[in-house]
């Protein structure tokens, strides 16, 4: 720990209730000057809620907040900014058609004192050099990758002079390399006396970056420990109250017939630019094919092409031997293609509808959930109750609107829905993103089970270790092309890394 032991933030007795849940239950927390403090806890433990209290988005039902020893009332985000608190949310709030600098100063200039863009640009460049946050201040946001956009959010906070930074699962959307770069930045902030709250479900990251860890369970603080006095195993004990075993997954020996055959597929992205070039692969029953690659190299379009949401400009897609190239998404669903999209708020769920409704979002036509032209709502509720239990989803009830679920629980809802259909092919993007350790294991085991039941699975992920432990083969996408397909048994992280950077398999080998 650098700096003195000045207390930047002291939360005491913070309680926040939502209808049917106590998200934070008398939480005490101290954040020191120059400290990286991790919040750890299962999905729905109350981490995001606590951060939202500290940024004035939620007002606590009880408890007090003091900043640098002074008791404060945070009525709204503006108050928090004035107290020098800034937060990087999981979904960013940037304007794509503006430049990095414009986004950073947006909302700062008022009335007669407009912000001078040139001055701001210089200052942004200085900050980015100072903290090792690599991003071009003049670039347009739409040109940036997710990782770069996150850096803009961080610069925005630094620009406003915040000393206290809150990062809610920042690494969930980053590639391993980007995560390493983020850690360099965080360390240099710490060295300059900033205080940082970091949230992550990845224990190795937590061990690597934090000074102290506070574990939340069921909304309560169950312990704050120094990282040097602990280890991943005891952290997960604290978190879930039991040990978590990390299973290995045997692959299936004999594969069945091909379920998905993609040949020579080309496709355009939503801006009309080529996104996929000459993609050819097939997945057999009983197989998990992984797709590795840095985000934005055609993963989204690939997933959409093989689920009927995007029509390829050339090539063919066959499911169970039937040509489906020009078929609608509806026909893909009927043919037994399940899909877990990356965008869980924007695509995979309807925020204002209940869990029950969302569970039948893609299944409401099935006889099980239909009564003639009507929706069999009782069946949907029964199904919802079953999945809530089976997938351990924390929610007050099946009638709760999806909007109020925690990030990880939302992901569980989508996984539960797509994994319990009688699918032949399951397409999953970032399966375990945002899931806690226990849920991650559960989902991996379930995917493995499905493989052994003879289903075909396409797993698109940036988590190389997950791909290596789960899949049969790994294909690497780069600029919309497949750089090669490796057997997971023989693949190494180093060579996958080179292929992700654009080297063909032949050159790597």
């Amino acid at each position, binding site marked *: 720990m650098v700096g003195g032991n000045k207390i930047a933030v002291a939360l005491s007795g913070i309680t926040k209730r*939502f209808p049917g849940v106590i998200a934070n239950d008398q939480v005490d927390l101290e954040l020191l000057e120059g400290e990286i403090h991790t919040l750890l806890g299962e999905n729905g433990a109350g981490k995001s809620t606590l951060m*939202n209290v500290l940024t004035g*988005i*939620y007002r606590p039902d009880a408890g007090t907040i003091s900043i640098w020893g002074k008791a404060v009332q945070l*009525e*709204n*985000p*503006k108050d928090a*900014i*004035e107290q020098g608190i800034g937060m990087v949310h999981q979904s960013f709030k940037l304007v794509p058609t503006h430049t990095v600098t414009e986004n950073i*100063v947006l909302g*700062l*200039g*008022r009335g007669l*004192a*407009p*912000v*001078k863009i040139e*001055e*701001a640009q210089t200052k942004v460049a200085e900050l980015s050099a100072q903290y090792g946050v690599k991003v071009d201040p003049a670039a347009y946001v739409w040109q940036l990758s997710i990782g770069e956009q996150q850096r803009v959010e961080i610069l925005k906070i630094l620009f*406003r002079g915040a000393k206290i930074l809150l990062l809610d699962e920042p690494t969930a959307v980053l590639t391993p390399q980007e995560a390493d770069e983020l850690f360099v930045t965080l360390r240099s902030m710490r060295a300059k006396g900033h205080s940082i709250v970091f949230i992550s479900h990845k224990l190795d990251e937590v061990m690597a970056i934090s000074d102290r860890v506070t574990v939340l369970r069921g909304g309560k603080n169950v312990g704050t420990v120094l990282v040097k006095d602990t280890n991943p195993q005891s952290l997960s004990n604290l978190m879930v109250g039991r040990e978590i075993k990390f299973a290995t997954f045997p692959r299936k020996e004999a594969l069945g017939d091909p379920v998905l055959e993609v040949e020579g597929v080309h496709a355009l992205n939503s801006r009309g630019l080529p996104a996929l070039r000459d993609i050819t692969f097939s997945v057999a029953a009983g197989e998990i094919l992984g797709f590795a690659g840095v985000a934005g190299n055609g993963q989204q379009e690939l997933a959409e092409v093989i689920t*009927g*949401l995007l029509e390829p400009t050339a090539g063919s897609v066959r499911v169970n031997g039937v040509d489906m190239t020009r078929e*609608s*998404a*509806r*026909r*893909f*669903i*009927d043919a037994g293609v399940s*899909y877990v*999209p990356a965008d869980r708020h*924007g*695509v*995979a*769920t*309807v*925020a*204002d*509808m209940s869990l029950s*409704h969302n569970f039948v*979002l*893609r299944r*409401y*036509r099935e006889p099980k959930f*239909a009564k003639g*032209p*009507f*929706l069999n*709502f009782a069946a949907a509720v029964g199904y919802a109750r079953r999945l809530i239990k089976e997938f351990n989803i924390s929610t007050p009830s099946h009638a709760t609107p999806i909007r109020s679920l925690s990030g990880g629980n939302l992901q569980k809802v989508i996984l539960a829905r797509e994994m319990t259909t009688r699918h032949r092919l399951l397409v999953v993007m970032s399966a375990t993103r945002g899931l806690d350790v226990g849920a991650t294991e559960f989902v991996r085991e379930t995917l493995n089970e499905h493989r052994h039941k003879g289903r075909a699975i396409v797993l698109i992920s940036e988590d190389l270790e997950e791909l290596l432990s789960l899949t049969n083969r790994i294909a690497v996408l780069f600029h919309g092309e497949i750089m090669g397909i490796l057997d997971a048994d023989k693949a190494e992280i180093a060579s996958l890394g080179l292929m992700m950077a654009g080297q063909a398999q032949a050159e790597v080998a």
Partner: protein
Amino acid sequence: MAMRLELRLERSRKLEVLVPVVSVLLSLVVCAVLLLSTGTNPLTAYGAMLKEAFGTSYGFGEVLVKATPLILCGLGVMLAFKMMFWNIGAEGQLHMGAWGATAVVMTGWDASAWLMIPAMMLGGFAAGALWALIPAYLKVKLNTNEIITTLLLNYVAILWVAHFIYGPWKDPTSFGFPMTKQFPDGAQLLRFGDSRVHLGLVFALLIAVALYFIQEKSRWGFEIAVTGSNPRAAEYAGMNAGRNILLVMLLSGGLAGIAGMVEVSGIQLKLLKDISPHAAPYGYTAIIIAWLARRNPWGVVLVSILMGGLYVGGETVQITMKLPVNIVLIIQALILFFVLGGDILSRYRLVFDRKEALSGG
């Protein structure tokens, strides 16, 4: 001190109910101020309106007469709004419906009501539906803005009706008035007792029940709700947005068309110029109704009856207290204004900034 709106993360149930009620009350208060400024005691005026509309059986009958087309149009608009398709064209669809029903009569066919009425309903429905399908089709094919197309088509429909009653369908014995001749008995809807309340009210209520089941219970209703709430999720769920836009507008326009049909067949007994009140046309009032009713079919029925009361009460004070007929329009506009404002406040909260903002440096 600056003011600004901030998104509420926690949406309040209480506000959802409170907003429509408070908006109606506020609009009455503001209108009271207007009345005072013209030297009228607002309490006397409101009292007279209330008494006339809901205190006498004749008045209440007239309320139901007005409520009938309002319910039908309101249900149609509600369904379109549920899918976030902004159908502002109920007024035009109502006119086309009236025209379509009249067209059946104008063939010269004279049969019993058992045949005539269903045929006229079909004609009204079909004409209203076709009229609504034009903007729907343009939206699906060319992604045109439906607010503009539905609105502009209203004027076309009104002129279309005018063309026929000034021209080919004009009754030669009408002393030059632009109207058709009176419909034969078989083309007139049954009226109850000696009131003007007619069978159209029963149709409207039955359709409200049907729409409740379609919108709230059916799988198609689920598709409409999902499409309205998150179109990308609808696409992901394999729902056919284009087809649903066409179908929803077919029903939406068809219902407004039936409103036009019951107006000519139950009330006017001929096609003429002002089938919809000039000051506050049914088709536009229906928009306010659908919004106030929170897109709920029972709500539409209830609010339509209240709005019917406003029409009847407004007519009364116009005659007895010599107030301008526009008072109805003013109250309606104020209600809409407050409901929309209230909607914003139930989603955002108003924040007052005490301190000066940070400067850019």
